[in-house]
Protein backbone atom coordinates (compact mmCIF):
# COMPACT_ATOMS: atom_id res chain seq x y z
CA UNK A 1 0.00 0.00 0.00
CA UNK A 2 2.68 2.44 1.02
CA UNK A 3 4.69 1.92 -2.16
CA UNK A 4 2.09 4.28 -3.61
CA UNK A 5 4.79 6.80 -2.77
CA UNK A 6 7.15 5.22 -5.31
CA UNK A 7 4.46 5.36 -7.93
CA UNK A 8 4.18 9.10 -7.49
CA UNK A 9 7.90 9.68 -7.45
CA UNK A 10 7.85 7.91 -10.78
CA UNK A 11 5.28 10.40 -11.99
CA UNK A 12 7.75 13.13 -11.12
CA UNK A 13 10.28 11.55 -13.43
CA UNK A 14 8.01 12.47 -16.32
CA UNK A 15 8.78 16.13 -15.70
CA UNK A 16 12.47 15.54 -15.24
CA UNK A 17 12.46 14.01 -18.72
CA UNK A 18 10.34 16.88 -20.00
CA UNK A 19 12.91 19.45 -18.97
CA UNK A 20 15.81 17.78 -20.80
CA UNK A 21 17.42 19.37 -23.82
CA UNK A 22 17.18 17.78 -27.25
CA UNK A 23 16.16 18.87 -30.75
CA UNK A 24 12.75 17.49 -30.02
CA UNK A 25 12.47 19.24 -26.66
CA UNK A 26 13.25 22.56 -28.29
CA UNK A 27 10.37 22.35 -30.77
CA UNK A 28 7.30 24.45 -30.04
CA UNK A 29 4.94 22.42 -27.80
CA UNK A 30 2.06 23.26 -30.14
CA UNK A 31 3.73 21.46 -33.04
CA UNK A 32 4.19 18.35 -30.93
CA UNK A 33 0.66 18.43 -29.53
CA UNK A 34 -0.84 18.86 -33.02
CA UNK A 35 1.25 16.07 -34.53
CA UNK A 36 0.33 13.72 -31.68
CA UNK A 37 -3.35 14.59 -32.09
CA UNK A 38 -3.11 13.96 -35.85
CA UNK A 39 -1.42 10.64 -35.12
CA UNK A 40 -4.20 9.55 -32.76
CA UNK A 41 -6.81 10.61 -35.28
CA UNK A 42 -5.25 8.72 -38.19
CA UNK A 43 -4.60 5.59 -36.12
CA UNK A 44 -8.18 5.50 -34.84
CA UNK A 45 -9.54 5.99 -38.37
CA UNK A 46 -8.47 2.45 -39.39
CA UNK A 47 -11.15 -0.22 -39.74
CA UNK A 48 -11.86 -2.60 -36.86
CA UNK A 49 -10.17 -5.62 -38.49
CA UNK A 50 -7.07 -3.73 -39.63
CA UNK A 51 -3.75 -4.92 -38.20
CA UNK A 52 -1.06 -4.89 -40.86
CA UNK A 53 -1.71 -1.29 -41.94
CA UNK A 54 -1.24 -0.14 -38.34
CA UNK A 55 2.19 -1.68 -37.83
CA UNK A 56 4.22 1.00 -39.71
CA UNK A 57 2.74 3.65 -37.41
CA UNK A 58 5.05 2.44 -34.65
CA UNK A 59 7.62 4.49 -36.58
CA UNK A 60 6.26 7.68 -34.98
CA UNK A 61 6.59 6.93 -31.25
CA UNK A 62 9.79 4.94 -31.80
CA UNK A 63 11.63 7.61 -33.78
CA UNK A 64 10.45 10.36 -31.43
CA UNK A 65 11.56 8.36 -28.42
CA UNK A 66 15.00 8.01 -30.01
CA UNK A 67 15.22 11.70 -30.94
CA UNK A 68 13.96 12.80 -27.56
CA UNK A 69 16.21 10.38 -25.66
CA UNK A 70 13.26 8.83 -23.82
CA UNK A 71 14.51 5.71 -22.01
CA UNK A 72 12.95 2.50 -23.42
CA UNK A 73 12.36 1.04 -19.97
CA UNK A 74 10.40 4.11 -19.00
CA UNK A 75 8.28 4.01 -22.14
CA UNK A 76 7.53 0.29 -21.87
CA UNK A 77 6.66 0.60 -18.20
CA UNK A 78 4.13 3.35 -18.95
CA UNK A 79 2.54 1.23 -21.66
CA UNK A 80 2.58 -1.74 -19.31
CA UNK A 81 0.62 0.28 -16.74
CA UNK A 82 -2.11 1.04 -19.27
CA UNK A 83 -2.14 -2.44 -20.83
CA UNK A 84 -4.53 -4.12 -18.38
CA UNK A 85 -7.19 -1.49 -19.14
CA UNK A 86 -6.73 -2.00 -22.86
CA UNK A 87 -6.98 -5.79 -22.51
CA UNK A 88 -10.22 -5.45 -20.54
CA UNK A 89 -11.64 -3.26 -23.30
CA UNK A 90 -10.79 -5.83 -25.96
CA UNK A 91 -11.59 -8.92 -23.89
CA UNK A 92 -15.15 -9.49 -25.04
CA UNK A 93 -14.58 -9.21 -28.79
CA UNK A 94 -13.37 -12.82 -29.35
CA UNK A 95 -16.46 -14.10 -27.50
CA UNK A 96 -18.95 -11.96 -29.38
CA UNK A 97 -17.55 -12.20 -32.89
CA UNK A 98 -16.75 -15.82 -33.82
CA UNK A 99 -16.82 -15.56 -37.60
CA UNK A 100 -13.60 -16.95 -39.09
CA UNK A 101 -11.95 -14.33 -41.27
CA UNK A 102 -8.44 -15.58 -41.78
CA UNK A 103 -6.41 -18.78 -41.96
CA UNK A 104 -2.76 -18.75 -40.93
CA UNK A 105 -1.61 -22.28 -41.66
CA UNK A 106 -3.85 -24.60 -39.62
CA UNK A 107 -4.96 -21.71 -37.36
CA UNK A 108 -8.37 -20.14 -37.99
CA UNK A 109 -8.55 -16.56 -36.79
CA UNK A 110 -11.99 -15.16 -35.95
CA UNK A 111 -13.06 -11.56 -36.49
CA UNK A 112 -13.25 -11.13 -32.72
CA UNK A 113 -9.60 -11.90 -32.17
CA UNK A 114 -8.62 -9.69 -35.07
CA UNK A 115 -10.69 -6.69 -33.91
CA UNK A 116 -9.50 -7.17 -30.35
CA UNK A 117 -5.88 -7.23 -31.44
CA UNK A 118 -6.42 -4.23 -33.71
CA UNK A 119 -7.95 -2.25 -30.85
CA UNK A 120 -5.15 -3.06 -28.42
CA UNK A 121 -2.60 -2.15 -31.08
CA UNK A 122 -4.27 1.21 -31.69
CA UNK A 123 -4.34 1.93 -27.95
CA UNK A 124 -0.69 0.93 -27.49
CA UNK A 125 0.34 3.22 -30.33
CA UNK A 126 -1.70 6.15 -28.99
CA UNK A 127 -0.53 5.69 -25.39
CA UNK A 128 3.09 5.39 -26.55
CA UNK A 129 2.87 8.62 -28.53
CA UNK A 130 1.20 10.41 -25.61
CA UNK A 131 3.92 9.22 -23.22
CA UNK A 132 6.61 10.41 -25.63
CA UNK A 133 4.81 13.74 -26.01
CA UNK A 134 4.77 14.38 -22.26
CA UNK A 135 8.32 13.10 -21.82
CA UNK A 136 9.61 15.50 -24.47
CA UNK A 137 7.37 18.48 -23.67
CA UNK A 138 6.48 18.29 -19.96
CA UNK A 139 2.96 18.62 -18.58
CA UNK A 140 3.52 22.35 -18.35
CA UNK A 141 4.48 22.57 -22.03
CA UNK A 142 1.45 20.54 -23.07
CA UNK A 143 -0.79 22.82 -20.99
CA UNK A 144 0.68 25.95 -22.57
CA UNK A 145 0.25 24.47 -26.03
CA UNK A 146 -3.39 23.55 -25.33
CA UNK A 147 -4.10 27.06 -24.09
CA UNK A 148 -2.53 28.68 -27.14
CA UNK A 149 -4.44 26.31 -29.39
CA UNK A 150 -7.65 27.68 -27.93
CA UNK A 151 -8.58 25.43 -25.00
CA UNK A 152 -10.38 27.64 -22.43
CA UNK A 153 -7.98 28.86 -19.77
CA UNK A 154 -10.03 27.45 -16.93
CA UNK A 155 -9.41 23.89 -18.17
CA UNK A 156 -5.70 24.51 -18.68
CA UNK A 157 -5.37 25.89 -15.17
CA UNK A 158 -7.29 22.90 -13.81
CA UNK A 159 -4.87 20.48 -15.44
CA UNK A 160 -1.95 22.49 -14.06
CA UNK A 161 -3.34 22.45 -10.52
CA UNK A 162 -4.22 18.77 -10.77
CA UNK A 163 -0.67 17.96 -11.79
CA UNK A 164 0.86 20.23 -9.16
CA UNK A 165 -1.21 19.03 -6.23
CA UNK A 166 -1.35 15.35 -7.13
CA UNK A 167 2.04 15.11 -5.47
CA UNK A 168 1.06 17.02 -2.35
CA UNK A 169 -2.19 15.08 -1.98
CA UNK A 170 -0.42 11.77 -2.62
CA UNK A 171 2.15 12.58 0.04
CA UNK A 172 -0.59 13.35 2.54
CA UNK A 173 -2.40 10.15 1.65
CA UNK A 174 0.81 8.14 1.98
CA UNK A 175 1.54 9.66 5.39
CA UNK A 176 -1.98 8.84 6.62
CA UNK A 177 -1.82 5.29 5.31
CA UNK A 178 1.60 4.76 6.84
CA UNK A 179 0.40 6.08 10.21
CA UNK A 180 -2.52 3.65 10.03
CA UNK A 181 -0.36 0.77 8.91
CA UNK A 182 2.13 1.22 11.75
CA UNK A 183 -0.64 0.79 14.29
CA UNK A 184 -2.69 -1.77 12.37
CA UNK A 185 -0.86 -4.83 13.70
CA UNK A 186 -0.91 -6.35 10.23
CA UNK A 187 -4.64 -5.91 9.60
CA UNK A 188 -5.57 -4.76 6.13
CA UNK A 189 -7.50 -1.59 5.39
CA UNK A 190 -11.22 -2.25 5.91
CA UNK A 191 -13.98 -0.30 4.25
CA UNK A 192 -15.01 1.02 7.66
CA UNK A 193 -11.62 2.64 8.06
CA UNK A 194 -11.44 3.78 4.48
CA UNK A 195 -14.42 6.12 4.82
CA UNK A 196 -13.00 8.32 7.59
CA UNK A 197 -9.54 8.29 5.98
CA UNK A 198 -10.88 9.46 2.63
CA UNK A 199 -13.12 12.02 4.34
CA UNK A 200 -10.21 13.35 6.32
CA UNK A 201 -8.12 13.66 3.18
CA UNK A 202 -10.94 15.54 1.47
CA UNK A 203 -11.19 18.01 4.37
CA UNK A 204 -7.45 18.58 4.30
CA UNK A 205 -7.65 19.17 0.58
CA UNK A 206 -10.42 21.67 1.17
CA UNK A 207 -8.30 23.54 3.74
CA UNK A 208 -5.34 23.57 1.43
CA UNK A 209 -7.41 24.87 -1.46
CA UNK A 210 -8.48 27.78 0.74
CA UNK A 211 -4.90 28.55 1.75
CA UNK A 212 -3.78 28.44 -1.88
CA UNK A 213 -6.58 30.79 -2.83
CA UNK A 214 -5.47 33.18 -0.08
CA UNK A 215 -1.88 32.99 -1.33
CA UNK A 216 -3.13 33.86 -4.81
CA UNK A 217 -5.24 36.78 -3.55
CA UNK A 218 -2.25 38.05 -1.59
CA UNK A 219 -0.39 38.36 -4.86
CA UNK A 220 -3.04 40.33 -6.69
CA UNK A 221 -5.06 37.51 -8.27
CA UNK A 222 -8.24 38.93 -9.81
CA UNK A 223 -9.72 35.87 -11.48
CA UNK A 224 -7.61 35.99 -14.64
CA UNK A 225 -4.46 33.98 -15.19
CA UNK A 226 -1.81 35.91 -17.07
CA UNK A 227 0.84 33.73 -18.61
CA UNK A 228 4.26 34.54 -19.95
CA UNK A 229 4.50 33.32 -23.52
CA UNK A 230 7.95 32.31 -24.50
CA UNK A 231 8.00 29.85 -27.38
CA UNK A 232 7.42 30.93 -30.96
CA UNK A 233 6.25 28.84 -33.87
CA UNK A 234 9.12 28.79 -36.38
CA UNK A 235 9.84 27.16 -39.76
CA UNK A 236 11.29 24.10 -38.03
CA UNK A 237 8.06 23.56 -36.12
CA UNK A 238 6.08 23.95 -39.32
CA UNK A 239 8.32 21.44 -41.09
CA UNK A 240 7.94 18.97 -38.21
CA UNK A 241 4.16 19.33 -38.33
CA UNK A 242 3.77 18.94 -42.09
CA UNK A 243 6.37 16.22 -42.55
CA UNK A 244 4.72 13.98 -39.97
CA UNK A 245 1.21 14.70 -41.24
CA UNK A 246 2.38 13.76 -44.75
CA UNK A 247 3.92 10.53 -43.45
CA UNK A 248 0.70 9.68 -41.58
CA UNK A 249 -1.38 10.24 -44.72
CA UNK A 250 0.95 8.12 -46.83
CA UNK A 251 0.86 5.28 -44.30
CA UNK A 252 -2.92 5.60 -44.11
CA UNK A 253 -3.37 5.32 -47.88
CA UNK A 254 -0.67 2.78 -48.72
CA UNK A 255 -0.55 -0.45 -46.73
CA UNK A 256 3.21 -1.06 -46.81
CA UNK A 257 3.34 -4.47 -45.08
CA UNK A 258 0.72 -5.78 -47.54
CA UNK A 259 2.59 -4.21 -50.47
CA UNK A 260 5.88 -5.76 -49.36
CA UNK A 261 4.13 -9.09 -48.90
CA UNK A 262 2.69 -9.08 -52.39
CA UNK A 263 6.04 -7.97 -53.86
CA UNK A 264 7.83 -10.83 -52.11
CA UNK A 265 5.24 -13.44 -53.05
CA UNK A 266 4.98 -11.93 -56.56
CA UNK A 267 8.77 -12.15 -56.97
CA UNK A 268 8.88 -15.68 -55.49
Amino acid at each position, binding site marked *: MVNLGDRFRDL*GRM*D*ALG*SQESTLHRLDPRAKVLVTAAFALVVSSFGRYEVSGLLPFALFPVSLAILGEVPWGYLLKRIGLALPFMLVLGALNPVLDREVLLHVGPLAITGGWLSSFSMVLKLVLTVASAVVLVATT*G*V*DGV*CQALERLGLPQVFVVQI*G*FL*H*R*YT*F*VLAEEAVRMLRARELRSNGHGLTHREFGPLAGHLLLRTWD*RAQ*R*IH*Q*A*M*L*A*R*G*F*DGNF*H*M*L*RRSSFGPRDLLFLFAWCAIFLLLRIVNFPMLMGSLVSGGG
Partner: protein
Amino acid sequence: MSHHIVEAIELCHRYGDGTQALTEVTFRIHHGESVALVGANGAGKSTLLQHFNGVLLPTSGAVRIGEVPLVKETLRDIRRTVGMVFQDPDDQLFSPTIGQDVAFGPLNLGLPPADVEARVRAALDRMEALSLKDKPAYRLSAGEKRRAAIATVLSMTPDILVLDEPTSGLDPRARRQLIGLLRAFHHTKIIATHDLDMVLDLCPRTLVLHEGRVKADGATREIFADEALLAACHLEKPLTMQGCLMCGEKRGI
Protein backbone atom coordinates in the same frame (compact mmCIF):
# COMPACT_ATOMS: atom_id res chain seq x y z
CA MET B 1 3.60 59.68 3.82
CA SER B 2 5.39 56.41 4.34
CA HIS B 3 4.01 53.11 3.13
CA HIS B 4 6.08 51.16 5.56
CA ILE B 5 4.10 51.64 8.73
CA VAL B 6 1.89 48.91 10.19
CA GLU B 7 -0.52 49.90 12.89
CA ALA B 8 -3.20 48.04 14.84
CA ILE B 9 -5.65 50.09 16.89
CA GLU B 10 -7.71 48.23 19.48
CA LEU B 11 -7.97 45.37 17.02
CA CYS B 12 -10.44 42.65 17.98
CA HIS B 13 -11.30 39.56 16.04
CA ARG B 14 -14.01 37.06 16.81
CA TYR B 15 -14.43 34.02 14.59
CA GLY B 16 -17.80 32.88 13.30
CA ASP B 17 -18.01 30.16 15.95
CA GLY B 18 -17.67 32.76 18.73
CA THR B 19 -13.98 32.20 19.51
CA GLN B 20 -12.43 35.47 20.59
CA ALA B 21 -9.03 35.28 18.90
CA LEU B 22 -7.76 38.85 19.36
CA THR B 23 -8.70 41.37 22.02
CA GLU B 24 -7.77 45.05 21.86
CA VAL B 25 -4.44 44.56 20.14
CA THR B 26 -2.66 47.89 19.70
CA PHE B 27 0.82 48.56 18.34
CA ARG B 28 2.62 50.65 15.75
CA ILE B 29 5.52 49.33 13.70
CA HIS B 30 7.67 51.92 12.00
CA HIS B 31 9.52 52.13 8.70
CA GLY B 32 12.30 49.56 8.43
CA GLU B 33 11.66 47.95 11.80
CA SER B 34 12.07 44.24 12.23
CA VAL B 35 9.58 42.91 14.72
CA ALA B 36 9.06 39.40 16.05
CA LEU B 37 5.62 38.14 16.94
CA VAL B 38 5.95 35.38 19.54
CA GLY B 39 3.50 33.45 21.64
CA ALA B 40 2.35 29.95 22.45
CA ASN B 41 0.27 27.86 20.07
CA GLY B 42 -3.18 29.38 19.82
CA ALA B 43 -2.05 32.77 21.15
CA GLY B 44 -3.46 34.52 18.06
CA LYS B 45 -0.32 34.96 15.95
CA SER B 46 -1.78 33.53 12.75
CA THR B 47 -5.04 35.41 13.20
CA LEU B 48 -3.10 38.64 13.60
CA LEU B 49 -0.95 37.96 10.54
CA GLN B 50 -4.04 37.37 8.44
CA HIS B 51 -5.18 40.91 9.23
CA PHE B 52 -2.09 42.45 7.66
CA ASN B 53 -3.20 41.81 4.11
CA GLY B 54 -6.90 41.49 4.58
CA VAL B 55 -7.39 37.73 4.52
CA LEU B 56 -9.34 38.52 7.69
CA LEU B 57 -10.97 41.85 8.49
CA PRO B 58 -11.26 43.23 12.06
CA THR B 59 -14.45 42.58 14.02
CA SER B 60 -13.79 45.91 15.69
CA GLY B 61 -10.86 48.30 15.84
CA ALA B 62 -8.67 48.97 12.82
CA VAL B 63 -5.53 48.02 10.95
CA ARG B 64 -3.66 50.72 9.06
CA ILE B 65 -0.92 50.09 6.55
CA GLY B 66 1.10 53.20 5.72
CA GLU B 67 -1.67 55.39 7.18
CA VAL B 68 -4.28 53.74 4.90
CA PRO B 69 -7.03 51.91 6.78
CA LEU B 70 -7.46 48.31 5.74
CA VAL B 71 -10.96 48.03 4.32
CA LYS B 72 -12.35 46.24 1.27
CA GLU B 73 -11.74 49.24 -1.03
CA THR B 74 -8.04 49.49 -0.17
CA LEU B 75 -7.27 45.76 -0.29
CA ARG B 76 -5.73 45.88 -3.75
CA ASP B 77 -3.15 48.50 -2.85
CA ILE B 78 -2.45 47.00 0.53
CA ARG B 79 -1.80 43.57 -0.94
CA ARG B 80 0.81 45.16 -3.18
CA THR B 81 2.43 46.82 -0.18
CA VAL B 82 2.41 43.84 2.17
CA GLY B 83 4.17 40.69 1.04
CA MET B 84 2.89 37.66 2.93
CA VAL B 85 5.02 34.51 3.16
CA PHE B 86 2.88 31.57 4.24
CA GLN B 87 3.92 28.91 6.70
CA ASP B 88 3.64 26.04 4.22
CA PRO B 89 5.52 26.84 0.98
CA ASP B 90 3.37 24.26 -0.82
CA ASP B 91 0.43 26.63 -0.42
CA GLN B 92 2.37 29.43 -2.03
CA LEU B 93 4.05 27.57 -4.87
CA PHE B 94 1.10 26.56 -7.01
CA SER B 95 2.42 27.09 -10.55
CA PRO B 96 4.06 24.41 -12.71
CA THR B 97 7.54 25.93 -12.32
CA ILE B 98 9.16 28.22 -9.78
CA GLY B 99 9.80 30.86 -12.44
CA GLN B 100 6.10 31.00 -13.31
CA ASP B 101 5.25 31.20 -9.64
CA VAL B 102 7.53 34.18 -9.11
CA ALA B 103 6.02 35.78 -12.23
CA PHE B 104 2.45 35.31 -10.96
CA GLY B 105 2.36 38.47 -8.81
CA PRO B 106 4.03 40.86 -11.31
CA LEU B 107 1.77 39.55 -14.11
CA ASN B 108 -1.27 40.29 -11.96
CA LEU B 109 0.06 43.82 -11.52
CA GLY B 110 -0.16 44.12 -15.30
CA LEU B 111 3.56 44.66 -15.93
CA PRO B 112 4.96 44.16 -19.45
CA PRO B 113 6.66 40.77 -20.06
CA ALA B 114 10.20 42.18 -20.13
CA ASP B 115 9.75 43.81 -16.71
CA VAL B 116 8.19 40.64 -15.34
CA GLU B 117 11.19 38.65 -16.54
CA ALA B 118 13.59 41.12 -14.94
CA ARG B 119 11.72 41.03 -11.64
CA VAL B 120 11.62 37.24 -11.62
CA ARG B 121 15.37 37.05 -12.11
CA ALA B 122 16.06 39.75 -9.51
CA ALA B 123 13.82 38.13 -6.88
CA LEU B 124 15.23 34.65 -7.43
CA ASP B 125 18.78 35.97 -7.48
CA ARG B 126 18.15 37.80 -4.23
CA MET B 127 17.05 34.52 -2.61
CA GLU B 128 19.99 32.59 -4.14
CA ALA B 129 17.43 30.55 -6.06
CA LEU B 130 18.05 31.45 -9.70
CA SER B 131 18.95 27.85 -10.51
CA LEU B 132 15.46 26.75 -9.41
CA LYS B 133 13.69 28.87 -12.04
CA ASP B 134 12.61 26.06 -14.36
CA LYS B 135 12.09 23.40 -11.71
CA PRO B 136 8.70 22.20 -10.46
CA ALA B 137 8.03 22.85 -6.77
CA TYR B 138 7.83 19.21 -5.71
CA ARG B 139 11.43 18.63 -6.79
CA LEU B 140 12.74 21.15 -4.25
CA SER B 141 14.09 20.62 -0.74
CA ALA B 142 12.35 22.33 2.17
CA GLY B 143 14.99 25.06 2.24
CA GLU B 144 14.75 25.67 -1.49
CA LYS B 145 10.94 25.78 -1.30
CA ARG B 146 11.12 28.35 1.47
CA ARG B 147 13.50 30.59 -0.47
CA ALA B 148 11.37 30.23 -3.61
CA ALA B 149 8.22 31.14 -1.63
CA ILE B 150 9.89 34.32 -0.38
CA ALA B 151 10.97 35.14 -3.95
CA THR B 152 7.34 34.91 -5.13
CA VAL B 153 6.56 37.74 -2.73
CA LEU B 154 9.72 39.79 -3.35
CA SER B 155 8.95 40.00 -7.08
CA MET B 156 5.99 42.22 -6.19
CA THR B 157 8.47 44.64 -4.51
CA PRO B 158 6.50 44.94 -1.28
CA ASP B 159 7.43 47.55 1.35
CA ILE B 160 6.48 45.28 4.21
CA LEU B 161 7.31 41.60 4.57
CA VAL B 162 5.20 39.37 6.79
CA LEU B 163 6.63 35.92 7.44
CA ASP B 164 4.87 33.05 9.20
CA GLU B 165 7.33 30.58 10.79
CA PRO B 166 10.04 31.06 8.15
CA THR B 167 12.52 28.66 9.77
CA SER B 168 10.16 25.78 10.64
CA GLY B 169 11.21 22.47 9.13
CA LEU B 170 14.60 23.71 7.92
CA ASP B 171 17.91 22.01 8.67
CA PRO B 172 20.46 24.14 10.58
CA ARG B 173 22.34 25.15 7.47
CA ALA B 174 19.25 26.11 5.46
CA ARG B 175 18.02 28.01 8.52
CA ARG B 176 21.31 29.89 8.80
CA GLN B 177 21.24 30.75 5.09
CA LEU B 178 17.69 32.05 5.37
CA ILE B 179 18.52 34.18 8.41
CA GLY B 180 21.45 35.66 6.48
CA LEU B 181 19.21 36.50 3.53
CA LEU B 182 16.46 38.01 5.69
CA ARG B 183 18.97 40.15 7.56
CA ALA B 184 19.97 41.82 4.29
CA PHE B 185 16.41 43.06 3.66
CA HIS B 186 15.63 46.67 4.38
CA HIS B 187 11.90 46.09 4.35
CA THR B 188 9.74 46.50 7.39
CA LYS B 189 9.59 42.92 8.66
CA ILE B 190 7.08 41.15 10.86
CA ILE B 191 8.06 37.59 11.71
CA ALA B 192 5.77 35.21 13.59
CA THR B 193 7.86 32.38 15.00
CA HIS B 194 8.74 29.97 17.79
CA ASP B 195 12.42 30.20 16.84
CA LEU B 196 13.50 32.65 19.52
CA ASP B 197 17.17 32.30 18.63
CA MET B 198 16.36 33.61 15.17
CA VAL B 199 14.48 36.46 16.81
CA LEU B 200 17.65 37.38 18.70
CA ASP B 201 19.51 37.44 15.39
CA LEU B 202 16.97 39.38 13.34
CA CYS B 203 14.52 41.37 15.42
CA PRO B 204 15.48 44.14 17.86
CA ARG B 205 11.81 44.42 18.88
CA THR B 206 9.40 41.71 20.03
CA LEU B 207 5.65 41.58 20.53
CA VAL B 208 4.44 38.84 22.87
CA LEU B 209 0.90 37.63 22.34
CA HIS B 210 -0.92 35.60 24.96
CA GLU B 211 -4.52 34.48 24.69
CA GLY B 212 -5.24 37.08 22.05
CA ARG B 213 -3.77 40.06 23.90
CA VAL B 214 -0.45 41.87 23.66
CA LYS B 215 1.38 40.84 26.85
CA ALA B 216 4.59 42.70 26.12
CA ASP B 217 5.99 44.96 23.43
CA GLY B 218 9.58 46.10 23.66
CA ALA B 219 13.25 45.41 23.18
CA THR B 220 13.82 41.73 22.40
CA ARG B 221 16.66 41.23 24.86
CA GLU B 222 14.74 42.78 27.74
CA ILE B 223 11.69 40.64 27.04
CA PHE B 224 13.70 37.44 26.75
CA ALA B 225 15.46 38.24 30.04
CA ASP B 226 12.11 38.49 31.86
CA GLU B 227 11.68 34.90 33.00
CA ALA B 228 8.39 35.50 34.78
CA LEU B 229 6.85 36.96 31.65
CA LEU B 230 8.13 34.14 29.44
CA ALA B 231 6.81 31.49 31.81
CA ALA B 232 3.40 33.20 32.01
CA CYS B 233 3.20 33.15 28.21
CA HIS B 234 4.34 29.51 27.87
CA LEU B 235 7.68 30.52 26.32
CA GLU B 236 11.27 29.63 27.07
CA LYS B 237 14.44 31.63 26.89
CA PRO B 238 16.28 31.17 23.61
CA LEU B 239 19.08 28.60 23.90
CA THR B 240 21.80 31.17 23.33
CA MET B 241 20.62 33.07 26.42
CA GLN B 242 20.36 30.02 28.64
CA GLY B 243 23.25 29.02 30.88
CA CYS B 244 25.92 26.77 29.40
CA LEU B 245 24.52 23.23 29.55
CA MET B 246 27.97 21.69 30.09
CA CYS B 247 29.35 23.87 32.91
CA GLY B 248 26.24 25.61 34.20
CA GLU B 249 27.80 29.02 33.66
CA LYS B 250 25.61 31.84 32.43
CA ARG B 251 26.68 33.60 29.31
CA GLY B 252 26.82 37.36 29.24
CA ILE B 253 23.85 38.88 27.48
